[in-house]
């Protein structure tokens, strides 16, 4: 979760494995949108001596649709290269890394950014420096300064690529042990006493590609979106990773990549390929384009998890168990966007073509008091209106699948009482601030917190 190791093929290829995608109006620069694509799941801070890095042989992309459409409008491409200061040492660094030009930093990564828009490819920047990973107190004593130096101006906005702290929180060990939610597991088919959830990703990092873009660069006509009811205010976002079609493992440790790029990973809405798409289709799903997602609609109309919940929690979801109609609510939220007339003052529709896109209505201003449950919590600036780094997408989607959103399209349905309460963490864990926890986020670009250092973590 939300897309960590979600498919058989990509689970064996971490550097190309998209884990989370975020798109939101920048709270400190509300005339811009921040797009974040995370890669490399479950990244241990102490993963030396060859610490985590982007793949030099992977093409990373963030694609935006606009004008209320699912057609690709703008694609940002990121291509990385790694350089060694001294190839004759095994060390990542030979002394403290005090700056991005520090001679003691041995393994450096740089990247270029290309934008495809209006049928033209334009190189926006080359040789942009990534920061080092957060090795530890001796090697990277002032990591925040290194990260700040790696925030580069780009086309009226900013760009960053490098290690950050994992922002997504979930109880992996419980949810994948027969769908258990620890705070509610006394009602599970195989019951255990209820306890708080375990935050599986709390001590992990991730590799982040983040761009902050003026909204006027994303709208179809270049205007600043101010009308939430306008299709021109809505963008759709997805990220992909691609590899060359042919790789030859040659003698002498050489690897040769040849041929056109082939898409091996994609991500729009969280948890889709994770829990909506069946395992035999996941790798195929990763290779396809969102605009062709009509072929997967049946998986949304009758999601497997909605059928499992009444079985795993006997007697808890009787209304959900009795509901046999297609889940039009999920199709709207996840595949076409929420049309006007459902939620007062809001829509993020991209038309009738089903497509897995993270949809953002850019005319909705940032919330002064954000709610982790986004629109379900009455906060129109949160998921599924785009996704902020702290949004509790696991809870939101579990509750949606459990039926809380069915009345949006079928007022005759009454959600089960548990549907609006289930979560993999307890209410006390949220109210105390234990989840998501301190240090996970910062209030400015790139918004994900300083990565945990490898000396102190895991502790």
């Amino acid at each position, binding site marked *: 979760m939300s897309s960590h190791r979600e498919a058989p093929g990509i689970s064996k290829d971490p550097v190309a494995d998209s884990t989370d995608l975020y798109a939101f109006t920048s709270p400190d620069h509300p005339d811009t949108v921040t797009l974040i694509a995370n890669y490399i799941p479950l990244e241990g801070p102490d993963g030396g001596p060859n610490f985590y890095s982007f793949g030099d042989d992977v*093409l990373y*992309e963030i694609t935006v649709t606009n004008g209320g459409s699912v057609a690709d409008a703008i694609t940002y491409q990121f291509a990385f290269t790694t350089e060694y200061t001294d190839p004759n040492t095994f060390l990542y660094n030979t002394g403290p890394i005090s700056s991005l030009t520090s001679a003691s930093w041995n393994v450096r990564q740089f990247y270029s950014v290309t934008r*495809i828009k209006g*049928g033209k*490819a334009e190189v926006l920047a080359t040789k942009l420096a990534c920061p080092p990973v957060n090795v530890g107190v001796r090697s990277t004593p002032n990591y925040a300064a290194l990260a700040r130096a790696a925030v580069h101006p780009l086309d009226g906005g900013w760009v960053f690529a490098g290690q950050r702290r994992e922002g997504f929180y979930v109880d992996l060990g419980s949810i994948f042990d027969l769908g258990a939610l620890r705070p509610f597991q006394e009602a599970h088919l195989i019951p255990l006493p209820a306890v708080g959830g375990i935050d599986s990703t709390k001590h992990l990092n991730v590799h982040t590609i983040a761009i902050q873009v003026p909204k006027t660069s994303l709208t179809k006509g270049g205007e600043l979106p101010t009308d939430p009811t306008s299709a021109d205010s809505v963008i759709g976002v997805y990220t992909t990773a691609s590899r060359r079609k042919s790789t*030859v493992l040659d003698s002498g440790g050489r690897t040769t990549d*040849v041929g*056109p*790029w082939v898409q091996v990973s994609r991500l729009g809405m969280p948890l889709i390929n994770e829990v909506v798409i069946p395992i035999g289709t996941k790798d195929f799903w990763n290779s396809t384009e969102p605009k062709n997602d009509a072929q997967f609609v049946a998986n949304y109309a009758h999601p497997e998890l909605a059928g499992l919940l009444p079985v795993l929690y006997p007697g808890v979801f009787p209304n959900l168990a009795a509901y046999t109609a297609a889940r039009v609510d999920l199709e709207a939220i996840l595949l076409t966007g929420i049309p006007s007339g459902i939620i007062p003052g809001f829509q993020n529709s991209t038309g009738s073509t089903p497509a897995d896109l993270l949809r953002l209505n850019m005319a909705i201003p940032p919330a002064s008091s954000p709610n982790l449950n986004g629109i379900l919590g009455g906060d129109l600036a949160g998921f599924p209106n785009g996704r902020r780094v702290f949004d509790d997408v696991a809870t939101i989607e579990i509750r949606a699948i459990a039926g809380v959103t069915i009345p949006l399209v079928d007022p005759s349905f009454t959600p089960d009482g548990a549907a609006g309460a289930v979560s993999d963490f307890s209410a006390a864990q949220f109210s105390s601030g234990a989840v998501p926890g301190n240090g996970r986020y910062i209030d400015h670009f790139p918004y994900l917190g300083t990565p945990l250092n490898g000396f102190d973590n895991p502790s």
Partner: protein
Amino acid sequence: MANVTRRTFLSTTVGAAGGVAAMGLIAGPSTLVEAAQNVADASDGPMSSEPMTAYVRDAATGEIAVMVGHREVVTKDPHNSIHNLTRGTHVFAS
């Protein structure tokens, strides 16, 4: 780069390999050597300067994908090269 979309960038940075593959390339190069030459001709550098991969995607139909740089040409082999190749594989296996 004229008329670039994300998908065309990925699949056909130069040339029309994807479209050719979809059409089965019946009217395309008739030998592996010709296919390789076509790919090389379309590349930026001389043929000998870049690695080339020939991928027999379906030995039964004789379909071969030849890749160099970011380019790919799919062809059919009318001269039994694949048959000879698979016989060679059989020899290796035994």
